[in-house]
């Protein structure tokens, strides 16, 4: 358990402003110069049910929320019951006095105060922020500034409600926690925002997507900023249209990205194979949720690793890579967009709800994003061959309008792009595409494909957003180990990973069958001594994960 971490948890019904209250708390902490990790747990419904937002903050690096909170604000009875187990020792719970049988020390009349205003249901989140402000010892003026800034719609009622809650809460919880300022204010980003901005920084022209949790916020973010960023954003009738439109846009020379979750990505499968054959550059974001099928839509899992690696009929080269944090998601999105264009292949950015929809403070240098301009075709007139059979297998691209004939083809084709069934040409084109993979493998030798954190002897292999949990568990449990995280999964950085195969490797992943452990064995000959899995849709809590790791070390 890290003593330098403060955790705020707010729970309530959908529609009470739980997520917003969490986001406001995150901004307060970030504004204090502290580092922040926010995890939102919400259900697939619009009203009712149970949602909560957990915000953990520290003055040093923090890569996960903690489920044991210092301050819990329970906006309804269900939250009070559910989250009483989530209090840290000396932690404090503020709940709705109106729902209690008898007055309790931490009861604050959230409901009866809310009923003094129109739309009382919308006030609760404001109340949570007021209670937090009181607990942190903020003055009332500062609270009013925060409310004015964060809850500007219907602001007078919000300020009045916040003041009332503050007045009741302050005598009970006032100045209970003294949080020190950190070393400087950092921006806060959701994983999906980082993916969107990273792709934009890497030269994105067009984003096409159909809504599907947990990928939708990429679509929402880019649609909200399309004109500002100069990115065309389209939401068509289905994921099938998405993928085919995206390939069409790439043909026109537009650097294009698509995004979905498992079900929608399954609908894109036919087009992914088209991208393989036509040699269309295409960046696909696959943000996983628990499957199979509709599964558990708003939660997290790593059940799509094999799907990403094997998606699409036929044999063609691809890239699959998975970011281990929000900052890495920013850089990786741009890097993958450019690799897709450099090699004219589909690239899959595999991530999960836990990264897509978690928010954290980041240090990002936009100038580090790659955006190389492609030289394009430089050859003679009337000699252009879309699929020229080069040594590296990569044919220089050219885009219409052009006096040259540019034919991309879903059928097997000759160098000009005209359909062929001729056996020698079929073989030759297979070989050409396969050489791109060989070329890509050697290219990736100069790219950081594997991250290693820590210097202990025991290797702990993990990937994707679980890296965040494992890294935080190291800190929480004071564990001496080295965390080995492949960023690139295909082509697999086999030799880089094999360097860490000795010393009773532990694997940590969010899947029920241990797909990642099998991946390491089959592709790298790494035999895990222990596989720690979780598949209830929830990310690991660092303290619990630290216990499980210590249990097998």
């Amino acid at each position: 358990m890290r003593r330098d971490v403060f955790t705020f948890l707010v729970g309530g019904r959908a529609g009470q402003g739980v997520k917003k209250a969490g986001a406001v708390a995150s901004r307060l902490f970030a504004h204090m110069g502290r580092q922040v990790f926010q995890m939102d747990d919400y259900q697939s419904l619009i009203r009712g049910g149970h949602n909560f937002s957990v915000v953990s903050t520290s003055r040093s690096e923090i890569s996960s929320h903690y489920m044991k909170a210092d301050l819990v604000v329970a906006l309804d009875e269900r939250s009070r019951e559910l989250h009483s187990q989530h209090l840290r020792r000396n932690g404090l719970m503020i709940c709705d006095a109106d729902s209690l049988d008898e007055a309790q020390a931490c009861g604050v009349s959230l409901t009866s105060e809310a009923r003094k205003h129109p739309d009382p249901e919308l006030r609760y989140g404001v109340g949570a922020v007021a209670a937090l402000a009181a607990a942190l010892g903020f003055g009332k003026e500062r609270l009013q500034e925060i409310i004015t800034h964060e809850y500007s719609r219907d602001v007078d009622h919000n300020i009045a409600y916040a003041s009332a809650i503050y007045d009741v809460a302050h005598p009970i919880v006032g100045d209970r926690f003294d949080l020190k300022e950190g070393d400087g204010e950092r921006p806060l980003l959701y994983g999906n925002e980082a993916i969107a901005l990273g792709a934009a920084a890497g030269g994105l022209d067009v984003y096409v997507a159909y809504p599907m949790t947990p990928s939708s916020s990429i679509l929402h973010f880019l649609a909200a900023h399309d004109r500002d960023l100069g990115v065309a954003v389209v939401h068509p009738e289905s994921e099938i249209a998405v993928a085919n439109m995206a390939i069409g846009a790439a043909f026109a020379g537009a650097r294009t990205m698509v995004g979905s979750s498992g079900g929608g990505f399954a609908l894109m499968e036919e087009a992914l194979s088209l991208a393989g054959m036509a040699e269309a550059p295409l960046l696909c974001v696959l943000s996983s949720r628990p499957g199979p099928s509709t599964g558990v839509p708003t939660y997290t899992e790593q059940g799509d690793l094999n799907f990403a690696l094997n998606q699409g009929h036929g044999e063609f080269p691809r890239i699959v890579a998975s970011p281990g944090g929000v900052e890495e998601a920013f850089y990786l999105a741009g890097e993958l967009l450019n690799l897709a264009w450099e090699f004219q292949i589909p690239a899959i950015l595999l991530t999960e709800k836990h990264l897509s929809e978690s928010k954290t403070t980041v240090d990002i240098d936009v100038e580090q994003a790659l955006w190389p301009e492609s030289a394009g075709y430089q050859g003679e007139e009337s000699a252009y061959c879309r699929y020229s059979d080069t040594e590296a297998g990569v044919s220089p691209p050219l885009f219409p309008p052009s006096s040259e004939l540019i034919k991309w083809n879903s059928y097997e084709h000759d160098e000009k792009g005209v359909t062929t069934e001729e056996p020698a040409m079929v073989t030759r084109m297979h070989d050409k595409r396969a050489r791109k993979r060989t070329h890509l493998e050697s290219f990736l030798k100069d790219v950081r494909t594997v991250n290693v954190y820590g210097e202990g002897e025991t290797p702990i292999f993990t990937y994707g957003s679980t890296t965040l949990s494992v890294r935080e568990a190291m800190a929480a449990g004071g564990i001496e180990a080295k965390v080995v995280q492949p960023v690139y999964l295909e082509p697999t950085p086999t030799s880089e990973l094999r360097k860490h195969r000795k010393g009773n490797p532990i694997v940590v992943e969010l899947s029920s069958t241990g797909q990642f452990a099998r991946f390491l064995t089959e592709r790298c000959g790494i035999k895990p001594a222990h596989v720690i899995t979780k598949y209830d849709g929830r990310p690991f809590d660092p303290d619990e994960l630290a216990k499980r790791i210590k249990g097998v070390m």
Partner: protein
Amino acid sequence: MDDLTTYADNTWCKGCGNFGIFNAFKKAVGKLEQRGISRDSIVISAGIGCHGKIFDYLKLSGLYSIHGRSMATVQGIKIGNPNLKPVAFAGDGDAFGEGLAHLVFAAKRNADITVVVHDNAVYGLTTGQYTPTSQRGFRGPSTPRGSVEEPLNPLTLLLDAGATFVARGYTVKQDHLVELLAMAVEHEGFSFVDILQPCVTFNNTYERYNGIVEILEETPDTLERALVVARRAEPLLLGVLYEVKKPAFHVALYGDWNPVEQRMPSTERREKIAAMLRPAST
């Protein structure tokens, strides 16, 4: 061989209606060039089936798509570079079966594309099964006792979906078809040309069509009148059934901006991102 024909071996059956579409389209390209639309900007796509072979035969740039998806492919091309004039060739199985959603939504959003349907009411390349436009009772290998379904009327469907240019052509009426195709490509917005195309091997409709087609004298001036004309089975009317001017999808979304030709310079893009990353002070 003319300058719009590639070296690919033509493998359509002798007498196939696809030749009529192929030849008419080449002539339409000539007409379009006279009207100021360069062939370099005309890009094509096709689905899968006998019709799709037109992609290999036409010496025009494009993307040979997959079954049912050419209509989505060309919408993406238009979004990427609005200066291009994309034409999707599709079979009736492609357009009205596998890819129906793309067709209806392209009409609904008035995507500035042209869809040319080689409507022969049969799957030729997979040897003669019934399609969405086959007559009830059509016997094919998947319906040996005859199809039990009524055929779709693609024209009324597309009119209702919001298509801004709807036409019917017939491969035998070449000069008429050439002008229809040129007008369709010229039209700013969604253009749909349903072409009656006899399949000499699996559904030879020459005799039937020759007996019932008639060229429409005047394009109906309202959607309601266009629907009446589109519903008529005999005579089967050829021509532009409806044409109306409405803002094209990409223009409604982005005005006259072109994502690839007016790409934001990387320095400007990065400055904007850096500004977004600057923490908003509370």
